[in-house]
């Protein structure tokens, strides 16, 4: 086990291209399950590969525990990695695959056998140890890849989108397995994914990346509830956070012509417009008129099983329309084109400055959040 300290990591793949990773500094605590989350091309995999040593950073340093490993090859870093495409050796049996790392370290045969047995047991591969990967299902290959990484008892375990090639059901069950496994191993894990649900459910902390930079880093619910930029609010959550432009009008603020309360602390900091970020589950709908609610109309109802996903529009006419998505209990009497009143608890609104797209909340700017980690 050891912590990971990245300092000023920059990586460009071509001399004149925009950097894939742009001056990223980051500390992953000892024993932490740390998730790098972002859309494809945001630099999360490059950052992971820099920690692994498969990629050399153009600038910056990598420390694993007390050791500086910036220019060490992967095999000298005491790490293990689970690859996106599994990268299970097709010419070796499952047992040989799992024992590969220890065999390369010239560990005694007995020790290898014990480690293989332990790692295979963790991921329930005991009964296929003699098979070749070609005789395994995708999910089993994936578990071979995890077992191979676990068997060397690395101080840092790196995972590059390990679930992305599995079908939905397997992904769900494997996600729980992975979380239990992480608890059991108690090793430092860096996990790369573009799936926000994975990130929220697995991570002790989540770092959201965009264009080679870390936008926000914090505990999952903190990142979910208090996104520091519009991008984070939109990237996390299904459906993404609603963003309603609130404009200054005569006698107050309004959304699509409908009055909307903007607290004084926020109103003081913007000129004519501010964005209200509201999570779909935080909107309280009503089929009868209630005070301080936005009147709207239901356009579409999508039953999700445990909830209804309702698309509604607010306003209309000259002031324009705004689309809103909300989640309601399944017994909500939602009919197409029915009128609806949407109440938004003021404390549930996340305010964004339209110019900078940053949250209007000085306390947790991205920089502060990253360095506090």
């Amino acid at each position, binding site marked *: 086990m050891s912590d990971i300290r990245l300092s000023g990591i920059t990586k460009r793949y071509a001399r004149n291209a925009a950097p894939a990773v742009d001056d990223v500094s980051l500390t992953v605590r000892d024993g932490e399950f740390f998730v790098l989350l972002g859309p494809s091309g945001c630099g999360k995999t490059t950052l992971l590969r820099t920690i*692994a*040593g*498969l990629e050399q950073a153009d600038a910056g340093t990598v420390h694993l525990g007390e050791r500086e490993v910036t220019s060490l*090859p*992967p*095999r000298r870093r005491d*790490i*293990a*990695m689970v*690859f*996106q*495409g*599994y*990268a*299970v*050796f*097709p*010419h070796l049996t499952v047992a040989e695959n799992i024992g*590969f*790392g220890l065999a*390369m*370290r010239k560990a005694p045969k007995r020790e290898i056998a014990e480690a293989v047995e332990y790692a295979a047991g963790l991921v329930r591969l005991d009964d296929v140890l003699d098979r070749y990967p070609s005789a395994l299902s995708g999910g089993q290959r994936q578990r071979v890849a995890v077992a*191979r990484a676990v068997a*060397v008892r690395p101080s840092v375990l790196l995972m590059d989108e390990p679930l992305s090639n599995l079908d939905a059901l397997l992904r769900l069950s494997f996600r729980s397995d992975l979380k239990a496994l992480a608890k059991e191993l108690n090793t430092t894990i860096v996990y790369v994914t573009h799936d926000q649900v994975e990130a929220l459910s697995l991570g002790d902390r989540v770092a959201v990346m965009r264009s080679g930079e870390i936008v926000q880093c914090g505990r999952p619910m903190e990142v979910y509830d208090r996104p520091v930029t519009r991008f984070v609010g939109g990237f996390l959550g299904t459906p993404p956070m609603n963003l309603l432009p609130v404009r200054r009008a005569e006698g107050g603020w309004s959304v699509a012509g409908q009055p909307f309360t903007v607290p004084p602390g926020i109103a003081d900091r913007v000129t004519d417009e501010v964005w209200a970020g509201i999570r779909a589950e935080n909107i309280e709908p009503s089929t009868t008129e209630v005070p301080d609610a936005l009147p709207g109309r239901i356009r579409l109802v999508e039953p999700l099983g445990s909830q209804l996903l309702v698309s509604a529009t607010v306003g209309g006419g000259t002031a324009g329309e705004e689309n809103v998505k909300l989640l309601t209990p399944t017994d909500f009497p939602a009919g197409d084109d029915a009128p609806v009143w949407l109440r938004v608890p003021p404390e549930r609104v996340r305010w964004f400055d339209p110019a900078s797209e940053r949250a209007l909340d000085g306390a947790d700017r991205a920089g502060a959040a990253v360095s506090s980690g």
Partner: protein
Amino acid sequence: MTARRVLGYGGAVLLAGWILVPIWFVVVGAFSTADAIYGYPLAAWPDWSLESMRFFVTSAGVPEALLSSVIVAVLTGVLTLLLAAPAGYALARFVFPGANAYRLTVLSTRAFPVVVLSIPLAVFFLQWGIYDSVWGVALMHTALALPFVVLMVSAVFAGVPVDLEEAAQVFGCSRSGAFRRAVVPNAAPGLAAAATFAVLLSYNEVFAASILTLQHPTLPVFVLTGLTQAPLPFRYAGALFLLAPAFLFILLIRRRLLGVGGGPTLR
């Protein structure tokens, strides 16, 4: 059946016949008695006598020529693979300036006629003392085989996922160790196919070999030089000896030649 299909199949049958009919007569000749060969008309079905074959392999010079041919072919296969593997690997794995130009250059060496290469080479080989030896011919054959084999080998390596190499590096291998332990085992069938190609090319090559040898010809050269004086059974059996390995090997490695590792080159 549409007219298009009739034309297509008809063409295929014609093409196959054009290749197979002469070969069949070689087989018939090689497995008939001398009397049957000199008789008229030549039977379409051989009487499966080994007389002609026995006559061929015991003729003066044939065992020696066959041995040189085999040695030259094996040397060519080994040399070609040793040289082509690093070149093919570089082409498959690395993006470097001029990679495409390099690819073309590799092929363009075949733009020089063999005769243009062979005569100056004969002069050099005389100076270096390897003229009329298996080494001289093997070097020449290696040069002839390399362009194709480099491209084949690069397709083979491109078919081995980079992931495997990286995984090997993460789990304790150096770069070269990762190549040895993760790439070679998975590329082996394709590499064997590529080497076989070089071996066959060498075994059947006659022109360069005839310029670069004198007392110690390879089998094709020996058969060719004796062609005008040799009796018919000798010619038939010799032809079969030259044809057979190519046919057998191509049959065995056919799938690998066509779709080497899913690579783009030889489709």
